């Protein structure tokens, strides 16, 4: 079973930036993103999140987001997706980076989650 990462941000450039950052330490981890609304405005889009789930080549996904409404759209996308998605209320950049580093090192999910726990901020 493979684990991948999905980044959801209100701003397309933030999502792209976090992806660029974490891919530096996780070249073999599938990292897909959903940034901004369908019109590339500030906000989030359930359709974009669904697409990020679909495009991710992993069987199971760890999802990270920036602000509250991103979480609501994520939860709706999770309800509709067939993939297993784990959602974390953690600091976006730090936790995505932590997870990416650990997944690259093939650390199991329970140990990744233990490292993410202190990063919970919301």
């Amino acid at each position, binding site marked *: 079973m493979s684990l991948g990462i999905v980044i959801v941000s209100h701003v397309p450039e933030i999502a792209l930036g976090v992806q660029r950052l974490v891919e530096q330490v996780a070249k073999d981890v599938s990292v897909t993103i959903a940034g901004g609304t369908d019109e590339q405005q500030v906000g989030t889009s359930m359709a974009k999140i669904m697409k990020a789930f679909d495009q991710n080549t992993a069987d199971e996904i760890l999802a990270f987001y920036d602000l509250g409404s991103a979480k609501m759209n994520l939860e*709706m996308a999770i309800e509709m997706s067939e993939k297993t998605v784990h959602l974390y209320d953690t600091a976006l950049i730090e936790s995505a980076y932590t997870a990416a580093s650990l997944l690259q090192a093939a650390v199991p999910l329970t140990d990744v989650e233990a490292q993410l726990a202190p990063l919970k901020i919301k």
Partner: protein
Amino acid sequence: MLTVENTVAWIDQFADQIEAKQSYLSELDTPIGDADHGGNMVRGLVAVKAALNPAPADLTKVFQATAMALISKVGGASGPLYGTAFLEMAKQSKTDTDLETLLAAALAGIEKRGGATTGDKTLIDVWAPVVSAVQAGKLTQAVVDDAVASTEPMVAKKGRASYLGERSVGHLDPGAVSSGYLFTALLATEGIL
């Protein structure tokens, strides 16, 4: 009792009110949010109106079309929140066409989706008293207006305004105001209440 005709009329009236109040809603969202509530809601409700013309075949489809348009077009937190409300009404409408039952299902959906409760300075502070009043057969414009006004002295605990803490006091919650329009439109629609 809700029918396709009166429900479409209700939602159309809601859309008209949101369009008329677009700049006011964004103005309310400026000191305590990201100044986009008016624009977001209008974008959603323009899509809703298009989805309801011609009117869908049954009540469930009316609510589903409304929900999907709001979820895909609104962008801010209001999209998933209003979208969930209408999705829950869609589910409930398969077995029931009573307004009070549908609104109670919608409120439960909003609470679950947003994790907020009464007193957090959100749209729930309008939905909760309105649902109670509908259940008691006592919904009036004053109930709606008082519920909207009640958000002004509250400290925001959920949503973008919560980052401001005490500084959110003294402002109406924009989502509460737009929900007020939903129920004002309900009162103005003939044959529902």
